[in-house]
C-alpha cells in the first residue's frame, strides 16, 4: 500500500488514499479424531490401566524387533551369537541375547498410587515435582524391562547415556549377570513411524501460490487471568493477526515482519487461561495449613469464588480474531477441560461469542466438517496445509523430563540445558513412537481398553509442544527403514539415497512470559518468531 518509505506511510497527514481490502490465504485443514474419547456414558473408568501397556507392547514390539534384527543379526562377541529371546523371563544367565519389552522405572520421588492410598491422600493430585530422581541417591533409580511374563532389572553403563522413561518400548542386547540383572550392551527403539506424504489426506491446491505464501501461527500459554496486566501483548497479538499492525512495507522484504495476511491458521496449544485462577482455588482446597482457608471452607461449590472474567476475555479474544482467521484451540493443564490426557475439547458453551464459528452440532453419522473455530483435544493430531501436525500442550514433555537427570553426561546443568533437554525429549518421543509414554504411570490418563492412541501410527511432519520455557526448534531425520550393514553403529547417517522422513520439532514458549508467536512456513516448514512486547523505558526504570 505504501507508495513511499514505510515511515512515511503512517507518520504523515491523513491521505485520501483508498485502501484495498487484503484477503487472507485459505487454510487447508483436516483434523484427526485420534484422541477424541467416546461421548458421555460410553466413557468407562472401570478398566485396568495395565491393558494400555500390553496394547502398547503389542503394537510396538514388531517395530522394535525389526529394528533390532536389522541391527543385531549376526552380531557376535567372542564367537557367541546374539540370540533373540521372545519373553523377558526366557533370558538365561550368561547367554548373549536380546529381548524387547516395556521400560518401567522405579524412582524414589515418583508418585505412587499405592502409597497415596495408604496415606489416604488419594483425593488430591500429587504436587508437581521437578524431578522424580533423587539426585543424592542416584542408585535408588531402578530401570526394569517388563512384558506380560515378568520383569528384568537392567544395569550397565549404557543406560546412563540414553534417555528412558516408563512406558517406552525398547529392545535390549546383553547378558544376564550373576546378580540376575541384565547387563545392557545396546538399546534399540522403534524409531520414527512411517511418515505420510504431504497432502496425503487432502487435495493439494492447484496453484503453488498458497503454499508459497502461507504460514501457520502457533502460540501457547496465553495465560489470561482476567487482570488487565496480561492483556497488552495479547492485544498487540490480535492487532497483528488481524492485519492492523503494518507488516513489511513494500520496500522491505524477508527480514521484516511476516505479512499477517499469509497466516492461514492460528493454533493455540493450551493454557489459554492463566494458572493463578486455578492455583488460588487449589491452594484453598489444599487448605495449606490455612487458617483463612478453613474459615471460608464451605461444603460444595462456592459460587462467589468463581471468577468468570478469564474465560470471557478469552472468548472475546477469540471472537475478535475469528472473523479473520480460523483457530484451532487445544486445552492445556490450566484450561477448563478434563485433567487427564487426552484432554477433551473445551466445551463451546464456554465461548458464548466465539461459538458462532464452531462447527454445527454433528448430526448423526458422517464426519462433520471441522469448524472454523475448532476446539480440539490435547494431544491433537491433524493435517494443516497438507502437513501432518502432532502437538500437545506440554504435559508429556514436562513429565518425561522428570525421569531424566538434568545434568548431561558432562554433569553440567545450564539454563539452556533444560531447553535442549526438552528438544531431546521431543525427539526421543518420536523415536519411541510414543508421545506420552509416561501415561498412565505419572500422567493421568483415560484407561484405554482397545487402543492406545498415544502410540504414533504415523510420524508427523511437525511435532510441537506448547508451554515450554523457551522457543526452540530443530529438525530430525529418521534412520533408513532397512539397514543391512550388521555393524552396531550410532552414526550411520551418511546414506543419501532414500528420502528420509524429516520432522520439524518446535517447542512453543509461553506467550504470557515471552510474548512470542511462532510462525511456520506452510511451504518449507521453516520457522520464524514474532515477538510482542512493550518497551520498558525511563518511566518504568525510575
Amino acid at each position, binding site marked *: 500500500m505504501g507508495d513511499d518509505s514505510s*515511515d512515511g506511510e503512517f507518520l504523515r497527514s491523513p491521505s485520501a488514499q483508498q*485502501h484495498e481490502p487484503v484477503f487472507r490465504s485459505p487454510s487447508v485443514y483436516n483434523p484427526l479424531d485420534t484422541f477424541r474419547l467416546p461421548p458421555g456414558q460410553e466413557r468407562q473408568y472401570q478398566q485396568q490401566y495395565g491393558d494400555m501397556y500390553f496394547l502398547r507392547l503389542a503394537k510396538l514390539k514388531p517395530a522394535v524387533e525389526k529394528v533390532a534384527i536389522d541391527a543385531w543379526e549376526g552380531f557376535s562377541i567372542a564367537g557367541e551369537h546374539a540370540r533373540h529371546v521372545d519373553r523377558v523371563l526366557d533370558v538365561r544367565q550368561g547367554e548373549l541375547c536380546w529381548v524387547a519389552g516395556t521400560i518401567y522405572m522405579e524412582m524414589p520421588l515418583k508418585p505412587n498410587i499405592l502409597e497415596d492410598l495408604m496415606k489416604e491422600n488419594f483425593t488430591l493430585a500429587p504436587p508437581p515435582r521437578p524431578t522424580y530422581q533423587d539426585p543424592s541417591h542416584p542408585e535408588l533409580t531402578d530401570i526394569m524391562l517388563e512384558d506380560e511374563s515378568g520383569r528384568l532389572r537392567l544395569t550397565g553403563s549404557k543406560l546412563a547415556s540414553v534417555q528412558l522413561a516408563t512406558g517406552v518400548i525398547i529392545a535390549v542386547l546383553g547378558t544376564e549377570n550373576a546378580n540376575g540383572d541384565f547387563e545392557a550392551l545396546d538399546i534399540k527403539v522403534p524409531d520414527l513411524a512411517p511418515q505420510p506424504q504431504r497432502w496425503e489426506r487432502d487435495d493439494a491446491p492447484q496453484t503453488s501460490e498458497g503454499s508459497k505464501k502461507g504460514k501457520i501461527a502457533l502460540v501457547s500459554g496465553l495465560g489470561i487471568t482476567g487482570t488487565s496486566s496480561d492483556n497488552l501483548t495479547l492485544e498487540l497479538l490480535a492487532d497483528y493477526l488481524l492485519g*492492523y*499492525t503494518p507488516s513489511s512495507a513494500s520496500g522491505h522484504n524477508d527480514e521484516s515482519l511476516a505479512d499477517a495476511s499469509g497466516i492461514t491458521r492460528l493454533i493455540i496449544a493450551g493454557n489459554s487461561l492463566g494458572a493463578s485462577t486455578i492455583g488460588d482455588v487449589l491452594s484453598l482446597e489444599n487448605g495449606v495449613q490455612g487458617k483463612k482457608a478453613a474459615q471460608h471452607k464451605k461444603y460444595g461449590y462456592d459460587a462467589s469464588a468463581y471468577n*468468570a472474567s478469564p474465560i470471557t476475555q478469552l472468548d472475546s479474544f477469540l471472537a475478535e480474531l475469528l472473523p*479473520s482467521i480460523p483457530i484451532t484451540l487445544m486445552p492445556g493443564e490450566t484450561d477448563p477441560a478434563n485433567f487427564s490426557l487426552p484432554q477433551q475439547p473445551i466445551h463451546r458453551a464456554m465461548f458464548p461469542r466465539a461459538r458462532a464459528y464452531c462447527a454445527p452440532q454433528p448430526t448423526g453419522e458422517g464426519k462433520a466438517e471441522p469448524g472454523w473455530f475448532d476446539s480440539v483435544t490435547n494431544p491433537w493430531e491433524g493435517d494443516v496445509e497438507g502437513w501432518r501436525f502432532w502437538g500437545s500442550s506440554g504435559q508429556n514433555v514436562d513429565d518425561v523430563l522428570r525421569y531424566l537427570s538434568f545434568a548431561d553426561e558432562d554433569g553440567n546443568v545450564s539454563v539452556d540445558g533444560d531447553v535442549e533437554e526438552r528438544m531431546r525429549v521431543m*525427539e526421543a518421543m518420536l523415536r519411541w513412537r510414543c508421545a506420552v509414554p509416561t501415561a498412565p504411570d505419572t500422567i493421568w490418563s483415560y484407561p484405554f481398553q482397545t487402543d492406545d492412541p498415544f502410540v504414533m501410527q504415523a510420524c508427523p511432519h511437525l511435532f510441537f509442544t506448547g508451554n515450554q520455557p523457551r522457543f526452540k526448534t530443530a529438525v530430525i531425520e529418521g534412520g533408513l527403514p532397512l539397514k543391512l550393514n550388521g555393524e552396531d553403529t550410532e552414526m550411520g*547417517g551418511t546414506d543419501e539415497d532414500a528420502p528420509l522422513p524429516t520432522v520439524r520439532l518446535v517447542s512453543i514458549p509461553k506467550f504470557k512470559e515471552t*510474548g512470542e508467536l511462532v510462525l511456520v512456513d506452510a511451504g518449507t516448514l521453516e520457522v520464524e518468531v514474532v515477538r510482542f512486547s512493550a518497551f520498558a523505558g525511563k518511566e518504568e526504570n525510575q
Partner: protein
Amino acid sequence: MAVADFKKYLAENVLNERRPVTYRSLGRALRVHSTLAKQMLYEFHHTENTKKPHSVNATYIITGTQKITGPTTTNGVNANSHHNDDDEIMPSSPYISSSMPNQDAAADQVPISSVLLVREEDLEDAKATFESISTIHVYSLQPTTLQDLNVLTDVGREMLVNHASEDPLQYGKQWGMIQNTNVKRRTGARPPPPTPGPTSTVPAKRPAQSEPPQLSKTETKEEHTQTKPAQRQSTPSTKPADKPAPVNKEKGSLFSSFAKSKPKLKKEESSTPAASGAESVEPSGAEDVLLDDASEEEPEELFPESKKQPPSEIRESRKEREERLKKMMEDDDDEDEEMADAAEPPDEPSAPIDQPPPKQEELKVEATVRGGRRRGRRQVMKKAVKKDSEGYLVTVEEPSWESFSEDEPTPPPPPRKKPVVSAPKGKAGAKAGQGNITSFFGKK
C-alpha cells in the same frame, strides 16, 4: 469521510476528557481504515504539539528486527531478553542412527521480528535496539505520559463494548481487517451476548431489580383499595387473587416471580389493566430475565439483525408450559394460599357491600333501627374448572354477582374497619385482612 471530524473527536477525547485514544478506537469511532486512523493520530499529535508543546503524548509501535545483542534496555516488562533462540544442532542422541542432520542447518538462524510498543519518550532508545526498522506508527494518543501501558487495554475493551453491535464480518473491511472469504459462521446461532467483563456481576441483581417496582405497586394498590373501597370497584374482582402472593413471598425473588406469574393463568383475560401491567410479563418472563439477562440487559446485541429464532422461541414456550405444569403439580402449599386467595375475594366484595357508598352504611344504621333486613347485590369469586387450550384442567376464578339479604346489619362494619386502619403498614394490613376473612366466613 469523517476526516474532517477527527480533530474534533480527538480534541474532545484526548484534551477535554483526557482519555487515551488508540488508532483502533479512533478507527472504530469514525469508521475509517486503520492506516488512516494512524495518520490522523500523527497529524493531531503533530499539530497540537506545535501549538503547545507536550500537550499530547503518544505511544508508538515499532516493527522490525531487533538487535541480537541489546537486551540491556529491554528487560522489565519486556521479559524476553534471551536472544539465542536459534536453530540448534541436535546433540547426537543415542538412538539416532542417521541423525546429525542439521549441522548445516545450524547456520541459519530463526528470524525473529519484533512488535514493540514504545512511549514517546523512549522512542529513540527503542529505535536503537533495532537492527532494522520496517515500520513505525502511532499507537495511541493521551494527554500525558502513561505510567502503565496496560491502561491501553481498557481502551480496547471499551471499544469492543461500544461497538459490539457492529458485525466484524461486515465492517472489517472498513477498519482494514484482513478479510477472509472462507469464514463459516453459523447463522442460526443464538445472538451472542455482547459485552463480557462488565456484565458478569449483574445477573444476580437483575431479578431483584425487577422485583421492587411490582411489589410497591401492588402494595400501594392495596392501600388504595383498602382505604378507598369505592375506587376499587372498577378494578376489583380479579385483582385480589394475586395480591397475597407478592406480599407473602417478598423475599424469594425468584420464586415470587414465578408465583406471581401463576395466578394470572388462573385468572381470566379480564384481568385489570393495572394487574396485567404489573404481571403481564409472560409467565416465562421471569425466567427470561434469569437466563438471558445478559442479552436482555443490553438490547444492543452483537448482531441485532438476527431476530429471535424460532428454535429458541419454541424452547421457551415449552419451558413455559413445563413451568406451568410444575407449578400445578407442586403447589400443594400454594393451594393453601389459594384458599387464602379464594377466601379473600369474598371478603373484598363484601367491602363493596358496605361500600355502595359509605353513606349507605349510615342509611343501614337507620334501617336496623327499623329492624329491617339488608338487601343488595354483591360480587363474589366463583371457581370454575375448565380445560384450557392445551388440555390441562385449570381452575378459573370468575367474578359473579349474587344478591343477598341478611339480618344483623351493624356488627360487620367495626371489624372491617380495622384493616383500614392498619393498611398503611403494608404486610400487617394484609394479615389483618386475612383474619377478617375467617371472621367473615365464621359468620356465614
